[in-house]
């Protein structure tokens, strides 16, 4: 019988054919450790009685939540990260290069078909290149550092087919918001999401990344896409036989199959304070905005900055609106700098910060207070995530965010 992508990856990793519900122990090809969790990971690692990381090539330590530090204790996590790397001979260390999920694929760590764990829920992102990746807690991370492996339950798969051409003002963010709205926030809990169809095929890896990144918002364990020529080019590899086999078989068993027509998608927002409370922007009415945030591991990539720049070129943000741009990585910053994108955004009044998690992680980068409304391109609009619980967070695409910054109210491009 045929298999879904996740079944193929876990079968390959376990060395035997697996089916949903099976509990298997898999080896991690890479693990991603972010600064904010490092103090806890290291302390659990020692408490468990480990002294040596099983393979110093496996962990990638990324300082992104707390760099540059906004509070006096922030550099503690930074030093623990750097010291642990030094102690263990871990050379995969990024001190200020951007957001972990961007770097894991961009810097060439994750390849199609691999198994990757990270101490951040948006670790699902690497599904965009056909890798299994999922978020775990720091205790499990400590155990993997010691043992190199972790048990997983093979998830059932929800297949999502999207075919056709997306409207011009619609981005992959609108697609995944609509799907999360349909699935609901818990609709894919314990499940693997598998995206396919010519709309996905025609998307850049960056656009796919947005979709995989947000799979967790429907509760999914992972959000996978079959690797193709674009994936190979992005990863700088040629797909081997195993990697080429990573697509959902026609006779694979899916728990659910959803079919979407690309033409039906419209610019959408997730309204406060649930990611699955999704509405077309056209149904919102007039909502004035105080702040716009363009960035994050969901939508801080070059094509996102391009999309915003295209909307804003020669124009200026509305008065008294804060427009904050935080590119996802150092490489993206540099590319956007060199091709003039940052110039356009700066002329439009953007506050451009160094790459990092920025506002999305709620530590700094544009925190708000009671009564403020933000249109943000990131992945969560939870109560209190970007300030007080009376801040209203609307999640939208980069195009919609840019258009809203110009208009001073929520509109689509």
């Amino acid at each position, binding site marked *: 019988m045929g298999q879904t992508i996740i079944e193929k990856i876990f079968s390959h990793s376990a060395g035997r054919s697996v089916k949903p519900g099976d*509990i298997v122990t898999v080896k991690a090809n890479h693990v991603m450790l972010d600064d*904010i*969790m490092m*103090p*806890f990971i290291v302390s*659990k690692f020692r*408490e*468990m*009685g*480990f002294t040596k990381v099983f393979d110093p090539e496996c962990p990638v330590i990324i300082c992104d*939540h*707390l760099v540059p530090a906004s*509070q006096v*204790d*922030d550099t*503690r*996590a930074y030093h623990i990260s750097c010291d642990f790397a030094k102690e263990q001979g871990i050379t995969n260390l990024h001190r200020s290069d951007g957001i972990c999920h961007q770097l894991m694929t961009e810097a060439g760590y994750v390849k199609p078909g691999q198994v990757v764990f*990270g*101490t*951040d*829920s948006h*670790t699902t992102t690497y599904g965009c290149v056909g890798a299994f990746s*999922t*978020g*775990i*807690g*720091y*205790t*499990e991370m*400590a*155990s993997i550092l*010691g*043992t190199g492996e972790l*048990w997983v*339950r093979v998830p059932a798969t929800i297949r999502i087919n999207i075919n056709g051409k997306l409207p011009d003002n619609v981005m992959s963010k609108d697609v995944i918001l609509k799907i999360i709205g349909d699935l609901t*926030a*818990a609709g894919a*809990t*314990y499940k693997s999401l598998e995206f396919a169809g010519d709309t996905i095929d025609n998307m850049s890896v960056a656009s796919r990344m947005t979709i995989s990144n947000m799979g967790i918002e429907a*509760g999914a*364990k992972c959000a996978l896409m079959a690797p193709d020529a674009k994936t190979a080019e992005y990863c700088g590899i040629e797909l081997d036989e195993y990697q080429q086999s990573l697509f959902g078989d026609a006779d694979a068993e899916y728990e659910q199959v959803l079919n979407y027509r690309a033409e039906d998608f419209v610019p959408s927002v997730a309204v406060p304070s*649930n990611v*699955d409370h999704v509405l077309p922007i056209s149904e919102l009415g007039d909502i004035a905005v105080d702040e716009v945030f363009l960035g994050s591991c969901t939508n801080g990539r070059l094509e996102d900055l391009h999309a915003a720049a295209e909307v804003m070129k020669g124009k200026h943000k509305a008065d008294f609106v804060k427009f904050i741009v935080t590119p996802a990585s150092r490489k993206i910053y540099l590319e956007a700098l060199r091709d003039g994108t940052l110039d356009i955004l700066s002329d439009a009044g953007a506050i451009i910060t160094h790459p990092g998690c920025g506002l999305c*992680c*709620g*530590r700094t980068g544009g925190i708000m207070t009671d009564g403020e409304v933000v249109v943000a391109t990131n992945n*969560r609009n*939870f*109560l*209190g*995530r970007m300030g007080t*619980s009376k801040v209203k967070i609307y999640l939208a695409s980069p195009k919609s965010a840019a258009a809203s910054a110009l208009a001073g109210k929520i509109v689509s491009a």
Partner: protein
Amino acid sequence: METFTGKVWCLGDDIDTDIILPTEYLVFKTIDEMKPYAFSPLRPELAGRIQPGDIIVAGNNFGCGSSREQAPEVVKALGVKCVIAKSFARIFFRNAINNGLLLIENSELPDAVSEGDEISVNVNEAIDYKGKKYPIVSLPDNLLEIIDAGGLVKAMRRRNGLEN
């Protein structure tokens, strides 16, 4: 099997990890320092009122959101005996088990119970509320092993010969 009785605090659906513990407190050095801020975006008073032995009852998708393990740790540190919800988010579930915080899935009790009520839990058997029994589905074996060991840290210490 263990039986206990506790007072109930009721929360709704989709109680996310930013509600359980907002990001700004994640960098505190100890879980004890984070404790007062648990559930603060939704109910700032709650952390101060929860007593050891109390039980949290919630709707669907409890613990959705980030992988921050501070979330179950802080709930446990408040002395919460167990969390009963219609369903749990995946990462939170794993993290809770790894830390020895008891989670029970039950789809009917959350709609029946009111805040301040007392319920009795007979672990792996049933919840008793006002004389009515709500059955508890037992956990898979591999999770029971971790719980039996007293959490993942203890299991690893055992593996590394530090504990019996």
